[in-house]
């Protein structure tokens, strides 16, 4: 594992937040902050400048994770992914986020999704395998495909 990722987790369900935090720390990453509302999340994005933001769609105070994703997109250079039980509500653009991980996810899916996102941040493009329940935004998928095509070809039979 390379240098730990600096991750902000935005989730209004305390138990799920706890599980994600625990899993991220076990995987050796650094949770730089957690937020349960869009307002707090946006403030933390500016304050902590994370490399990855995991965002629930429905947040406390009736706020929306879409606003958080938009703020992340406006700032630029930060990878965002949704984690939501309402994945079908997201359109193809996903407010600029790279992917959505549908709830409920399994422990394995969470680990593999995180590996995928870590690759997006640290060594794009990620491997082609997308874990069950994870959906990558089409624009990002296309961009990863272009990156793969530009890579030096693997050693062939010659």
């Amino acid at each position, binding site marked *: 594992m390379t240098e730990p990722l600096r991750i902000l987790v935005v989730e209004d*369900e305390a*138990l*799920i937040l*706890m*599980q994600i935090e*625990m*899993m991220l720390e076990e995987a050796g990453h650094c949770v730089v902050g957690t937020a349960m509302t869009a307002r707090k999340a946006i403030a933390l994005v500016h304050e902590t400048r994370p490399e990855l933001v995991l965002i629930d769609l*429905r947040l406390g105070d009736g706020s929306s994770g879409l606003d958080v994703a938009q703020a992340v997109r406006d700032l630029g250079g930060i990878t965002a992914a949704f984690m939501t*039980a*309402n994945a*079908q509500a997201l359109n193809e653009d996903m407010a600029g986020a790279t992917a959505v991980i*549908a*709830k*409920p*996810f*399994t*422990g*394995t*899916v969470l680990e*593999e999704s995180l590996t995928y996102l870590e690759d997006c941040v640290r060594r794009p493009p990620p491997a082609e395998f997308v*874990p*069950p*329940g994870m959906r990558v935004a089409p624009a990002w998928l296309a961009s990863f495909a272009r990156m793969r095509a530009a890579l030096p070809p693997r050693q062939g039979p010659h």
Partner: protein
Amino acid sequence: MEQPDAWHQTDRLDAEQGKGDPFAAAVRATRMPMIITNPRLNDNPIVYANDAFLRMTGYGRDEVMGRNCRFLQGKETDRGAIALIREAVEANTDIAIDILNYRKDGMPFWNALYLSPVVNEAGQVLFFFASQLDVTDRVDAHLRVQQEKDRFEAEVAHRTRDLTEALATQTMLVHEVDHRVKNNLQMIAALLAMQTRAITDPAARTAMESMLTRVEALGTVHRRLYQSNNVERFDVAEFARDLATDLVRGSGDRIRLHLDLEAVEIPVAKAPPVALMMNELITNALKHAFPDDRPGRLSVTVAPDSAYFTIKIADDGVGMPVQVMEQRSFGKRLIGTLCRQLSASIAWMTNDPGTIVSIRLPREMAGGLEAS
């Protein structure tokens, strides 16, 4: 009865159509109202009207003779229809049209008018011949049908609006409940996962992990619900792909997964027991077939079989040890119970090497397809 001067009227018409002419007699006696007008006279007046016409309109013969037909028109008569008749007269062509006319007593009636010019050999229009028919009943019936239809359509539109609104409310409710169920399953999994990490006793930990896997399988069912076009059906094949991929990848990278899946849609209510059954069988295979980090291959088949479908899970591992086959573990009891619930038959076979588990189960609910 024949009016005494009727003969006289025909006499005046034309020499050839005079008294005693059988055609003229037929026109006089027919039940169909008929008139003849003379366009060569000023204002194209009526020069002949038969008794049927007088009966229909309620006028006396002396009241209609020498007058233009427009006295039949009234307040509600369609101006467009009048214009069409005028155009036909001016163009010397025939016309058939339903027009609202009025009797002498003011009662309106629908008149199916047929107007036709009578031309001599030189091409000159001598007369207009007009037959009428009181079609009030027909037109009224038509209007009534039209009104009924309009009323019915309005009612249908109204009901459709109500139902669309009800459906929108219901869909919102389903999504809300679906969202809550998925979140709650995620919370249960979170609780199990976190508690499991705190347990040091290996047996207790294994039991907790099995529980977590079962809850996660149910979670995967709910994640996949309402994803197909038909919200009442659940695709076993797509679920099997997600479940097997997740379980095999979760067991490390020494097991290769082979999938042979054909779409099989079952009622949503059947999805949880089917999912739990598949979860038990796949986790069993992964747990017992490949001891000591032995590499291998697991294949999962889902195939329709008329009113039934089969799920086959095959490994190329060490084979089920007899003690595993015979022990009364919770997992085995669970499989037995789910088989009973699903009316499924299950068979364990030797794969040489390895084991094949084959389940055959009805696609519909008990009392569904089989009963019909």
